């Protein structure tokens, strides 16, 4: 035993620690009433002050326009949340350099839900009740989005989700919108191709995860409606690297084409397996592999692979006459310049959701959540990265199958095949 001093100090520390945490926690800034919100400027805001204004732009002044963002920056969905967060920060800088929103600075408050539904609910409540945001973009995943839907509906604050699940906008919930292209639209695009090439018998192989299961579900529903027969379906686990067993089974069924539904790296192994087994029928992939990673992983086995893709990943191949081209080019180039990485589909979702919210605020000339919601529902012909959006009271997803282009791998590059 040492002297009593240190121990007493320890006891005091123990008692103080929770108290300190609770006090820090209780001292949350009250909702700003005057023009002087009692909040320390965050590093982001200080940066804003430092961002050079574009020529002819007026410096944004007054109370910030607060938009909440919930992304899975860590956890299982980090590959989605990370680019989304980066895109949101990039856009905040761009908007403020152009004079802000309604002449006021834009403040995007990003919270990490750690890919956890409980965290997502707490994050949404914090953004709504403490930060008093006028809208929230995200969450990244379908489960986290579904978990916060009741909270958004109850608080009457609009949500523009970055997740692709069908349940999010079907049935319609007044305050919930979404920006990703749905699996249904991708399947519609695939059916277009199959019909044009008189393919009537296919086999499917999909990954055992939410994305793969949803795709398989949509394929089996819509292909049968289109009189296209699925001869057989096989699945593989997310980390599998050898699909020859499943492919051998499918080969025995003699399909005219194989449709694979998954995200990297699995589908590249499917392409390699088919090459190894000498399967020469067309391989159709989902939009989940529309990025440079697939080309790299599949290498020469990827030659001839076809898929529906959003225009962002193949922006260089989009003709200059296309309405989306200018924003695809400027966003992709700005993202590349800031992060030395290519903007992927998920970065695009953050771009679309944030810009749609901003234009709704501008249209409503207000940051009242209910007015922003009404303006959101009137979004018409908004040109985004995923497509051209038109929301209506009956459609909170806003895209058509024209959001997809049909691309083919030729010479190790994405080529438009329309």
């Amino acid at each position: 035993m040492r002297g009593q001093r240190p121990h007493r100090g320890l006891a005091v520390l123990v008692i103080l620690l929770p108290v300190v945490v609770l006090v820090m926690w209780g001292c949350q800034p009250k909702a700003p009433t005057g023009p002087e919100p009692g909040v320390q400027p965050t590093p982001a805001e200080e940066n804003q002050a430092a961002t050079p204004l574009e020529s002819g732009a007026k410096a944004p002044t007054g109370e910030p326009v607060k938009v909440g963002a919930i992304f899975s920056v860590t956890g299982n969905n980090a590959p989605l949340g990370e680019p989304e967060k980066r895109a949101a920060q990039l856009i905040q800088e761009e908007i403020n350099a152009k004079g802000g929103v309604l002449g006021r600075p834009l403040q995007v408050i990003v919270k990490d839900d750690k890919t956890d539904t409980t965290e997502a609910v707490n994050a949404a409540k914090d953004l709504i009740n403490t930060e008093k945001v006028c809208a929230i973009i995200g969450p990244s995943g379908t489960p986290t989005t579904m978990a916060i839907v009741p909270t958004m509906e109850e608080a009457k604050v609009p949500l523009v989700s970055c997740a692709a699940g069908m349940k999010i906008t079907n049935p319609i919930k007044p305050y919930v919108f979404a920006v990703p292209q749905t699996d249904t639209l991708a399947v519609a695009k695939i059916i277009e191709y199959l019909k044009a090439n008189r393919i009537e018998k296919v086999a499917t192989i999909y990954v055992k995860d939410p994305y793969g299961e949803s795709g398989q579900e949509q394929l089996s529903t819509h292909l049968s409606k289109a009189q296209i027969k699925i001869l057989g379906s096989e699945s593989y686990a997310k980390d599998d690297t050898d699909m020859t067993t499943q492919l051998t089974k499918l080969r025995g069924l003699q399909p005219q084409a194989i449709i694979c539904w998954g995200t990297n790296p699995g589908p590249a192994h499917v392409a390699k397996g088919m090459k190894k087994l000498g399967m020469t029928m067309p391989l159709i992939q989902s939009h989940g592999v529309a990025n440079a990673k697939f080309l790299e992983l599949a290498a020469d086995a990827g030659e001839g692979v076809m898929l529906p893709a959003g225009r962002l990943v193949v922006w260089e191949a989009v003709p200059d006459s296309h309405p989306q081209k200018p924003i695809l080019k400027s966003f992709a180039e700005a993202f590349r310049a800031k992060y030395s990485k290519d903007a992927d589909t998920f970065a695009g979702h953050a771009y679309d959701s944030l810009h749609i919210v901003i234009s709704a605020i501008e249209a409503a000339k207000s940051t009242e959540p209910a007015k922003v919601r009404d303006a959101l529902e009137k979004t018409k012909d908004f040109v985004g990265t995923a497509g051209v959006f038109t929301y209506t009271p009956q459609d909170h997803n806003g895209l058509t199958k024209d959001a997809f282009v049909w691309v083919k791998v030729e010479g190790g590059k994405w080529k438009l095949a329309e």
Partner: protein
Amino acid sequence: MTTPRARSVFLGSLPVLALVVGVVAFPLVFRNNYVQSVGATIGLYSLVALGLCLLIGYAGQVSLGHAAFYGLGAYSSAVLTTRLHWDPWLAMLVGAVLTGAVAWLVGRPTLRLHGHHLAMATLGFGIIMQIVFIEGDELTGGFGGITSIPPLRIGGLSITGDVRNFYAIWAVVVLCVMASRCLVDSRVGRALRAIHDSETAAAACGVDVSTYKVQVFVLSAVFASVAGSLYAHYITFVSPDPFSLAFSIQMLVIVIVGGSRNVWGALLGAALMTALAQQIEKTDAIKDLSDVAYGLVLVLFIVFMPAGLAGALSKGLARVRAQRADENA
């Protein structure tokens, strides 16, 4: 415990009283829904940690699979109320019985194992259960989960919103704290502590070691199951996400930080670690290093307070008492 029985009961009921007062006052003091919902989350975690605390601190068995029991409770409630339209309370009860039965089946063989092997077995069980939630398409909705779970009802009152859920969850926590205190102060509690210190010695004194171990394992699983049911009716949506290994580890951290040799450790640990995680998220300077900051706090605790918050607190109190006695002498 060397204090006379009467005094320990009195001193023992004082914290319970303080807890009740704190619980009643919390939503009245903090009007912000966010703070209330974090309070409710702390309640849910406290309940799971309480069971784990009995298992670790009193019976000396480590479980890395408690997310499975939490999930079983949540899914039982979700499936029975949405698919079969059962009454939520009945669903909660059936979920608890089902979880208890599963825990008994799992516990009988695995609790014969010691140390690492037991941890590995429960770890495996936790992973298996998460796969069951994912693959039980027809029943569990797979990755998409189950939506529109009805709220709990008391008479004509629906328990919706943060305040009502906060009270419902904490009412259960208070009851379970009282039950746990009775348990640890009883003959059974002494037997469990004996097992914790030395199974061989306890068996030599006539303690039925394996039966007690299985029973406390079942009890802790039931606590987790009830917490899961409360979670399902509060959030009204379940998916396989929250019932992962990460959750089991988080509960373990809560128990270690709070102190496992004391029932209050579960509550202190849950409150501190949950509030801390939220605070880190709100502090821009360390936000991006949230995992590092969280880990650092954990390491500091293990180094400076091996007995956890509750352990250090009770030590401090004992010291103060001893000093008073010295002065009076």
